[in-house]
C-alpha cells in the first residue's frame, strides 16, 4: 500500500514581461506539483523549496536580457533560497536572469544568426545526476522546443574548462546549436548543483498534443526533488 503523495509546492515567478509563467505553472500542476504564483515585487517567497523563473521578456529585455529583472525585489528571497540549498530553475529568460544575477556562470548573448529561433531542438543529457534531470539517463536524447533571440551561451575558455571538468554542463544541443552557444551548451547548473538554467522550454513539451513530452522529464525531476526537499528540507 502506498501513501497518497503530498503535492510539493513550487513557486513560479512572474516578472513584467514574463509570458511562460502560466505554461510553467500548468506543466508543474500536471506533473503533480502545486504551482504557487509569485509576483516580481514580492519581497518574500511562500513556503517552498523550489522556484521556477519562467521564460518571456522581463522588463522588455532592455539593456541586456535579464539584466533588470535581476534587481527585482523577489530576487532577494530567490537568492536566499538558492544559498540555502533550495532548487531554482530558470527557463530561457529565467536562465538569462540567473546568469545576470550571478547565480549561474556565463552569459547569454544574441544568437549568431541574429534571428529569433523557434523550433524543436534535439538535446543530449550530459548530466543525469542533478535534481533537474534525475528522470533522464546520461546520454539520453531529448526533443524540446527553443524560442529565443538571445540564447547564445558564452563562457570564456577558462570558465568553459571549469564547467566541463566539474560536470556543470547538463544539456547540450545535438548537432548544430540553434544559437551559436559555446560547446553547444543548452543548460548548466551551478557548482552546488541546486540552480539550473536552460534555454529550451520543458514546459512546452509535456503534452503529446504539441509533440514531444520530453520536457516532463526535466520538470518531473524538479517536482520529484521538490517533494523530497519538502519532506526533508535538509536533505535536498
Amino acid at each position: 500500500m502506498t501513501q497518497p503523495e503530498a503535492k510539493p509546492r513550487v513557486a513560479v515567478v512572474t516578472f513584467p514581461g514574463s509570458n511562460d509563467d502560466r505554461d510553467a505553472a500548468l506543466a508543474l500542476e500536471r506533473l503533480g506539483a502545486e504551482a504557487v504564483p509569485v509576483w516580481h515585487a514580492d519581497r518574500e517567497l511562500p513556503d517552498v523549496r523550489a522556484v521556477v523563473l519562467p521564460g518571456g521578456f522581463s522588463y522588455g529585455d532592455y539593456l541586456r536580457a535579464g539584466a533588470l529583472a535581476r534587481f527585482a525585489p523577489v530576487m532577494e528571497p530567490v537568492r536566499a533560497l538558492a544559498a540555502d540549498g533550495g532548487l531554482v530553475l530558470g527557463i530561457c529568460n529565467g536562465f538569462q536572469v540567473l546568469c545576470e544575477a550571478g547565480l549561474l556562470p556565463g552569459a547569454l548573448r544574441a544568437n549568431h544568426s541574429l534571428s529569433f529561433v523557434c523550433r524543436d531542438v534535439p538535446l543530449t543529457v550530459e548530466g543525469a545526476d542533478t535534481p533537474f534531470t534525475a528522470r533522464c539517463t546520461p546520454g539520453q536524447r531529448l526533443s524540446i522546443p527553443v524560442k529565443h533571440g538571445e540564447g547564445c551561451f558564452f563562457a570564456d575558455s577558462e570558465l568553459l574548462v571549469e564547467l566541463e571538468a566539474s560536470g556543470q554542463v547538463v544539456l547540450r544541443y545535438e548537432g548544430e546549436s540553434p544559437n551559436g552557444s559555446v560547446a553547444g551548451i543548452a543548460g548548466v547548473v551551478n557548482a552546488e548543483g541546486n540552480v539550473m538554467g536552460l534555454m529550451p522550454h520543458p514546459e512546452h513539451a509535456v503534452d503529446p498534443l504539441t509533440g514531444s513530452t520530453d520536457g516532463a522529464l526535466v520538470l518531473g525531476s524538479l517536482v520529484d526533488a521538490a517533494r523530497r526537499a519538502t519532506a526533508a528540507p535538509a536533505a535536498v
Partner: protein
Amino acid sequence: MRATVLVRPKPGILDPQGEAVLGSLQQLGFAVDAARVGRVVDLELRDSDSGQARADLERMCEQLLANPLIESYEIELVQET
C-alpha cells in the same frame, strides 16, 4: 554633470551585430575591415564632485550598465563650466 558611458563587446567575443553591419557596409561598397557594435548611455548626474561622479559611474558600470564577462566600458565625464 553629464557623463557618457560606452559599452563594447570585449575583444575576441564574436559580435554578430558587428558582423552584420560589416557585411552591409561592404555590400554598399565601403572599404571597411571590421565593425563592432556597442551601446552608448548618456547620463545626467547629480554629483557635483567629479571624483565622486567617476566612482559612482564605475559602480553603475560594474553593477548594471555592462556585463563584465562579455563587455568592456569606458567612462567620459563632461565637466560643465
